[in-house]
């Protein structure tokens, strides 16, 4: 019976691959087009889009390679993987390259490597592993919180507050899904308050960003500048978009149009009609993964299958909310669609860890009309 359940679980995850592989690739292609559009008025319009396409191909390769290894391998090697990906987080503080005020990249011959992006999946795997292993409720909470602090502090010191927020969200997600107590979750949120206060005092620009977000019309050329630019960009897109190569506003006014403002930039080119499917696509990935996670017997695997797409959706929604101005500016990129090889490849690897390609290959090369059972 147990063997039957495991086989059923394997089959379901395999079915998920049939949907997720093409969807991730399509999102990546959509991202390349958005990046081209947001930089088409620059001196080298294909520079960023071309590089992103190359990274997409590398990402697809890594998605395939990481999925070739069995989940059991990741389960056994979780500590080694965690240490291997944690050490660069420390090393980058000493030997990293600074970009946009953040000391978060290693550079090698024009190629930039962001360790905090690559560390996301190993960190989540470690959290899921601890969550499935430690029985005692309090010990589990302390262990998860401790590990989160150890991983988040070097990222916050870069300082990369957007990624730190994603790491902390991963902790909340794993602890909640793993059946954690609400009062401990509440305690961890309260414990976060002094950290936030310290951060706000140290970075007074956050106040002006917040005022600008609350009432952008009051100072459209000052504090409200970014919020107003997002709105003007979306308005220019309209329902059908300003068409490819004509996203004038994204090119001229949006801050970091190809990364932090990717969704607004995309909306200008393809309008509501082209941006809404991205939201739907991300939610479909999340819902499909949840459906499959339900069928997994192994607690670690189930939590991981659910948390990777959920975290992907969470980060995407934060980015999109900033771009449609329902959240203040945070500097979080849109996974897979925003420019950045590290983010793209690491997201693909994260999906690859639980997506075995066998069923996809069988579907592509020996499809005999069998139905597949995602929903």
């Amino acid at each position: 019976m147990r063997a039957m359940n495991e086989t059923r679980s394997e089959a379901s995850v395999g079915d998920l691959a049939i949907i997720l592989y093409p969807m991730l690739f399509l999102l990546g292609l959509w991202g390349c087009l958005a990046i081209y559009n947001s930089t088409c008025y620059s001196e080298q319009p294909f520079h960023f889009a071309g590089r992103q396409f190359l990274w997409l191909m590398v990402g697809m390769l890594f998605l395939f390679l990481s999925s070739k290894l069995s989940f059991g391998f990741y389960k056994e090697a979780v500590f080694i993987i965690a240490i291997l990906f944690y050490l660069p987080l420390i090393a980058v503080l000493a030997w990293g390259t600074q970009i946009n005020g953040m000391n978060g990249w290693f550079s090698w011959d024009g190629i930039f490597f962001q360790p905090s992006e690559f560390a996301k999946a190993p960190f989540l795997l470690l959290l899921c592993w601890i969550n499935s292993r430690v029985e005692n409720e309090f010990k589990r909470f302390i262990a998860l919180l401790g590990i989160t602090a150890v991983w988040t502090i070097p990222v916050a010191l870069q300082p990369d507050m957007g990624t730190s927020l994603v790491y902390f969200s991963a902790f909340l997600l794993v602890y909640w899904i793993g059946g954690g107590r609400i009062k401990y979750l509440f305690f961890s949120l309260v414990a976060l308050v002094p950290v936030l206060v310290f951060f706000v005092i140290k970075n007074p620009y956050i106040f002006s960003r917040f005022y600008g977000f609350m009432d952008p019309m009051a100072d459209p050329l000052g504090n409200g500048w970014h919020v107003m630019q997002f709105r003007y960009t979306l308005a220019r897109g309209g329902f059908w978009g300003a068409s490819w190569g004509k996203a004038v506003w994204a090119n001229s006014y949006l801050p970091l149009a190809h990364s932090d403002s990717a969704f607004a930039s995309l909306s200008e080119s393809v309008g509501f009609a082209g941006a809404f499917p991205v939201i739907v696509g991300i939610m479909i990935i999340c819902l499909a993964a949840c459906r499959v996670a339900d069928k997994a017997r192994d607690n670690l695997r189930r939590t991981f299958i659910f948390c990777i797409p959920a975290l992907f959706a969470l980060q995407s929604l934060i980015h999109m909310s900033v771009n449609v101005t329902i959240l203040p500016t945070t500097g979080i990129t849109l996974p897979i669609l925003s420019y950045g090889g590290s983010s793209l490849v690491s997201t693909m690897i994260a999906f690859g860890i639980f997506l075995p390609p066998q069923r996809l290959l069988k579907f592509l090369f020996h499809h005999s009309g069998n139905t597949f059972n995602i929903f």
Partner: protein
Amino acid sequence: MQSMDFLFKIRSRVVLCFLVLWSVAVSITLFHYTVSARGKYLEMGDKLAWKEGIIPSVRGRILDKNKKILAWTEKYFDLFLTGAGYIEIRRENEMMAELADIIVLEPIKINSKTMLLKKNLSPEEIILIDMIVSKYPEFKIIPRDERRTIDYSRVRSIIGTVKIEDNMMIGVNGLERTHNRLLSGSDGLYVVMLDKQGNWVRGTWKLLRKPKPGKDLILESNVEELRRQMP
């Protein structure tokens, strides 16, 4: 194990509901700005970015009866540094060094904020410094019309002089004044989108009204006769 399965199902559904509701909120807001409130924000954005500009009409020439040109207009381009004294010293030094590598500067202080860096740029020089001017919006290339006359002082006093007011050339005395309307023509009008540095955005320039050049004034005497007319 069964209770864990149940707890997982419940809690994962809570997370999913939260994410779905959030995505609905994002979609509604997206629809609001792209469709419902589009007109309002388009208008506000246009006010911020689109600027109108005047294309000065070319002033007509003054010719004698033999069609010899006595007065004509020439266009020159000057390079200015604007906002001088308000730019960070390190940045200003960097800007000036980059520029000085390409052209020879002859700086003249115009006022506390503006400095004329080079008068009468040649077309080759304009092409050379184009990248630097786009990179540093504090540098401005400003066109200037100059009225030239034939090199006979007696004839020059008959032709008269012009002054420039609001980018328009106006006759002050002599024939330039009496025939000002005929010589002036009418200015053209254009709109262009500016980026946040104040540079023109490629492909956004639109002509609203064509400039009409002034008409040439042909005199009934030749140069020698004009010279004799003067005491």
